């Protein structure tokens, strides 16, 4: 399936996706869009690990299982983050990071 495509193409694609996520993380003001940027970053790392596993160490399983665990961590992270975001919305009626600047209640 990957014949004719060098490894570096996958890595460059993942790097571009990673830095797109970094840009979104730096510029966004809304908590949910920041979470979406984090999902982009996690996905690009997964592409990296799977490409390394397929091209360089096809007889091993590390990259595959690491990306499986990264997906599980990302799922639990999204669940907790959205619970926190909904709690913040109830308390402040906004999820703009600039308006949410007190943790004490």
């Amino acid at each position, binding site marked *: *399936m*990957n014949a*004719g*495509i060098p*490894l570096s*193409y*996958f*890595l*460059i*694609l993942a*790097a*571009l*996706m*990673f*830095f*797109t*996520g*970094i*840009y979104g993380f*730096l*510029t*966004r*003001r809304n908590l*949910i*869009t920041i979470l*979406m940027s984090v*999902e*982009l970053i996690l*996905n690009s790392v*997964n*592409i990296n690990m*799977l*490409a390394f596993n*397929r*091209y*360089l160490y*096809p*007889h091993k*399983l590390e990259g*595959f*299982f690491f*990306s*499986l665990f990264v*997906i*599980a961590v*990302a*799922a*639990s992270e*999204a*669940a*907790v983050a*959205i*619970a926190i975001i*909904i*709690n913040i*919305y*109830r*308390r402040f009626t906004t*999820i703009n990071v600039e308006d949410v600047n007190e943790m004490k*209640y």
Partner: protein
Amino acid sequence: MTLNQLMFVLFGLMLIVFGILTVTSRRILRAAVYLLFVLVSTAGLYFMLNYQFLAAVQLTLYAGGIVVLIIFSILLTSHISQKFEPVGLKKSIFSALAAITGAIVTIVTILDFQFSATAEAAREIDMKVIGKSLLATGRDGYVLPFEVISILLIAAMIAAIVVAKKGGPKKSVSDN
């Protein structure tokens, strides 16, 4: 150009274009839908790398689970027709500068580095191998991270329920 390369270019273009739209779109629901396209094309790349199981997990868990969760929380917290204010020029220029600099450094390093593949025979990762490895100890065994991730998932579920349940408007906070 073979069919492989054509598909790679297609998925790569989808990934980059929809990724940029995800982080720049001023309507939040559209950003979530663009994120869905990004995740689907990532699953396509996993299919191209011949990891069918992980592509299926990506489609069901990310595209089916997390995106729906995000869309629900968008519907709960923001107004659909609301548009974000445009990002300040200075801020967007400096963020783009940081991102582009990082991308250039990474890409130059990748192109410079000589990757050397092993000569070992490739091993197909089918469902049997995955199931056995997840519960095996010793070599190629991943039982410890499996157990840790199961505890993490339980903790995350309980934490999500506890965090989202308590609270309420600001005046009734003092009685818990």
